[in-house]
């Protein structure tokens, strides 16, 4: 298992989502991706997309208006 990180700070929708999708494509099953975001609509659409893919998702509140989305590529 490998841990990847994706810095999407300062990026507005839909850039975080597209970047996440691209990054996940290249990862192996079992790998974990941590996406750093500070755009509130990305907190909704990135986890939503990941869940429809069947991945495990967790959202961490890091600071005011700052989140880490942890996605495990389960398949």
């Amino acid at each position, binding site marked *: 298992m490998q841990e990847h990180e994706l810095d999407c700070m300062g990026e507005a929708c839909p850039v975080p989502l*597209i970047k996440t999708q691209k990054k996940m494509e290249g990862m192996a099953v079992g790998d974990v991706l941590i996406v750093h975001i500070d755009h*509130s609509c990305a907190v909704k659409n990135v986890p939503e997309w990941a869940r429809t893919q069947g991945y495990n998702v967790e959202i961490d509140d890091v600071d*005011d208006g700052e989140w880490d989305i942890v996605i495990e590529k389960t398949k």
Partner: protein
Amino acid sequence: MNNFFKNLAKNEFYKKLLSEPLTYVAGAVLLSLFQIAHFAIFKSGWGVTGAFANWGAWLFQLVGGDVSDWGYFASASRQKTLEGGFLNDGGSIRNLGIMFGALLSTLLASQFKLKQIKALRQVVAAILGGLMMGYGARLANGCNIGALFTALGSWSLSGWVFAAFMLVGAYIGSKLLTKFFM
């Protein structure tokens, strides 16, 4: 005090009402109710970008510019709005309300943050995107609120035409975005 805010952040009602986004359905229902109320009270539909054009004209006048011979502002009603000034323009006040409400909601959710600009690319994207959206909205005589949402809700065919071309625009826009900004 600090403990109070920590507990507040975990409170079920606080989370549901203030910190987490509403569901799409809840948002849609509220928007519909407000738009009906708006139409009933003001006898005109909700729009956003028209007022911004007036803001531009007023700013231009502040620095000594003159828009009286511009085709866009030529109509009597637009001249009247410009002459009436900011405080007499309901659309401008409504836009201020949107900004104030958005700020208030992000403050109440404790999600306010001044974002750091990381790359020139983000600046270019924001400025280019804003200019194109504003220019397009004026050419189309409405944005996705005035020309789409309000028009659709008023059973106007123009809303469906706008929707069709907005889909085309969104498709081209997303292709350009992934090509130049990813």
